């Protein structure tokens, strides 16, 4: 690139660098500093206290009731969230995108599915609350009609055994639309010739899907996985509106713990420590993503 072009390039990107420095990098540095600030200067106090916290409302890992029903601790809840939500929403998105690819009017179905992503998550949380309401909620009513009389026919969000799983199920509904859209767009780029060739060679539908389509969707799957994991780690609004992490801390998550330290305990040091832990956790899938992208670039 000639020097003159370089100059133009730097000139036009400079505002972005300045804005990123002021509004992204500086607050991150500030948060890191606050997380290490203690009454006696700097230290790891906030991290130690946050990690060893025993309140069911703020514990990252709640050991007292293990291995009994929830709460298990906010961080464990986030991992459970990933373990259930990630495969379900990826699989549903992938299968639906594949099945709907050649169906007439599929765009209407896709639009309906995408509604979950369009509504603000606060509204999504409210919808989830109504979804599980004992009197008007679709799930309890359905189970009541089927003759169930236990927890399943009641409000799922008020029982510690069901609250977390009910929220995860609600999140699957809200998030699947995103994965469906990603996979539907990626499917457009899969050449039909490869599928036709496989059909001529006698491959059945499952073989075509698993051996021809899925491998070609790998970049899209990586994006969907990384976005879903990040979303699961920073989940907040749905929990805040639906259960506020309860009952008894059974549906608590990391972001809510951060909020509780910040807005309730007014303890900014510990809130910053939780946010740093959360950021470090999100770095793991982030680094993996960058490595995968680099690998595919080299390949």
């Amino acid at each position, binding site marked *: 690139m000639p020097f003159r072009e370089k100059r133009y390039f730097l000139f036009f990107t400079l505002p972005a660098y300045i804005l990123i420095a002021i509004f992204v990098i500086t607050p991150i540095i500030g948060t890191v500093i606050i997380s290490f600030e203690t009454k006696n200067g700097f230290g790891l106090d906030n991290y130690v206290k946050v990690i060893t916290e025993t309140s069911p409302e703020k514990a990252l890992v709640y050991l007292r009731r293990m291995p009994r029903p929830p709460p298990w601790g906010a961080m464990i809840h986030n991992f459970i969230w990933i373990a259930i939500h990630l495969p379900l929403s990826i699989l549903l998105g992938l299968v639906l995108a594949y099945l709907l690819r050649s169906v007439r009017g599929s765009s209407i179905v896709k639009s309906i599915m995408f509604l979950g992503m369009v509504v603000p998550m606060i509204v999504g949380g409210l919808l989830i609350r109504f979804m599980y309401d004992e009197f008007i909620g679709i799930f309890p009513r359905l189970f009541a009609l089927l003759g169930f009389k236990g927890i399943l026919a009641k409000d799922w969000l008020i*029982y510690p055994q069901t609250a977390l799983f009910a929220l995860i199920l609600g999140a699957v509904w809200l998030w699947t639309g995103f994965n469906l859209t990603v996979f539907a767009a990626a499917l457009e780029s899969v050449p039909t010739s490869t599928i036709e060739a496989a059909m001529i060679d006698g491959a059945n539908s499952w073989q075509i899907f698993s051996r021809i389509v899925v491998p070609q969707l790998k970049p899209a799957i990586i994006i969907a996985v990384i976005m879903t994991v990040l979303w699961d780690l920073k989940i907040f609004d749905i929990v805040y509106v639906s259960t506020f992490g309860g009952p008894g801390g059974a549906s608590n998550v990391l972001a809510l713990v951060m909020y509780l330290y910040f807005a*309730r305990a007014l303890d900014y040091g510990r809130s910053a420590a939780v946010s740093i832990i959360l950021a470090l956790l999100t770095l793991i899938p982030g680094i993996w993503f960058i490595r995968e992208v680099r690998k595919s670039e080299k390949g």
Partner: protein
Amino acid sequence: MSSQGGLLKAAIALSLIALLVSLAAIALLYSQIGALEAKINTLNGKISELESKVGALEQRVGELGKPAPTPQPQEQVELVVIGPWSGKSAEYFSKVIQEFEKKYPNIKIKYLTKRAEDLAQILPVQFESGLTPADVIITPWAWFIVKMAQKGYVEDVSSYVKEDEYIGGVVNNVKWDGKIWGAPFTMWLKPGFWYRKSFFKKHGLQEPQTWDEFVALLKKIKQIPGIKNPIVTGDGVGWPESDITEHFLITFGGPQLQYDLISCKKKFTDPEVEAIFKEKLVPLIKEGYFSEPMEWTSAVERWWAGEYALYFMGTWIAGRVQDPTDIDFFPLPGCKAVVGGTDYAFIPKFTKHKEAAIIFLKYIATEGQAVHVSGPAGKIPTWKGVSVDVIWTPMKSVYNKIKERNMKIVPDLDDTVGGDWQTLFWDQLKLLWVQPDQVDSVLQTLTEQHPACKG
């Protein structure tokens, strides 16, 4: 490739320079702000000194029998006021604003609704930056006002709020360092179990006079066709369950127990407290006399529709039903105190209209209370200057019933302790309501996490 590499290095170098420049600029700004803050603090100190002198002078003038007229701003001022009320409750508060604007035509009020929870999230950050979203802020969380005062964000209002003019203990909640940081507004009460008079008459039910009669009443109600549970449990983030629990604690442990639990002179694991939970409250939950928690406003509708017979709620329920003359309440037999909660107004240090804010604060702490309690807000005054005659009729009967029974008013337990223990308390009680067998674990958690018990 090499030119791209060079370009990348240049970009990184440039971004680092930008970062350093911005950090240096921020550091410079901070030092300037620090110096400015010191000057402002000195000025504020002088102003406070002057104000207290003026206050003392006003008091002397008052003593001479010539009350000093409240000065009015010369120019039109718009005051931003934040309060917790929305919907009908906001309508009732707007009457207070209207009357104030009539009296002080140069001050216009812009009212915004913000829940206490949201304020706790927004205000500390705004205050830290030397900003305020409002000139007067009203919140039921006295602990929050004190906490903000401790950080130096709140105006001292000791000169304008006379403690002896208010009902006992109300001002004490907003006192710290010998000064008063908030002005009490009106008070709600959580007096007992509300019922529809028509429902009780139809089914031949009577208010219970003893604990056995209360249990018998619940049993009788449970057998009425169409009744889901005798008592409906409201829920939101869990506060309605805490009100019921406090009522049981006060009834069987006496009013002093409420204070002892607040200060942790008694713990939740104390045998006396444990007995109240295990012998009185938990058996009723296990028997299915309480409904499972449901959103508290929809619980009002279901209770009104006759799906439930009793509802433990605050006095504001009177303003939320179609016919307030059809409702009445009874406390648990033998209860000697009722929980009362007050909304407090405070002035942030960073207001630009301090003079007008003081006028408004003084108004709502005194005459404004009379306006508020005369409507269906479901409140009673905390200022002794308000005549009982002006109180809205349904509330007057509540007031008289409490007076007849010689019941004291005690502060709300979780509102007073505050902080994140409050949400823990609510959440643990939500757990207790659906898993009453967890009572030991709940009481242990509440004790371990209580800030006063931690020391």
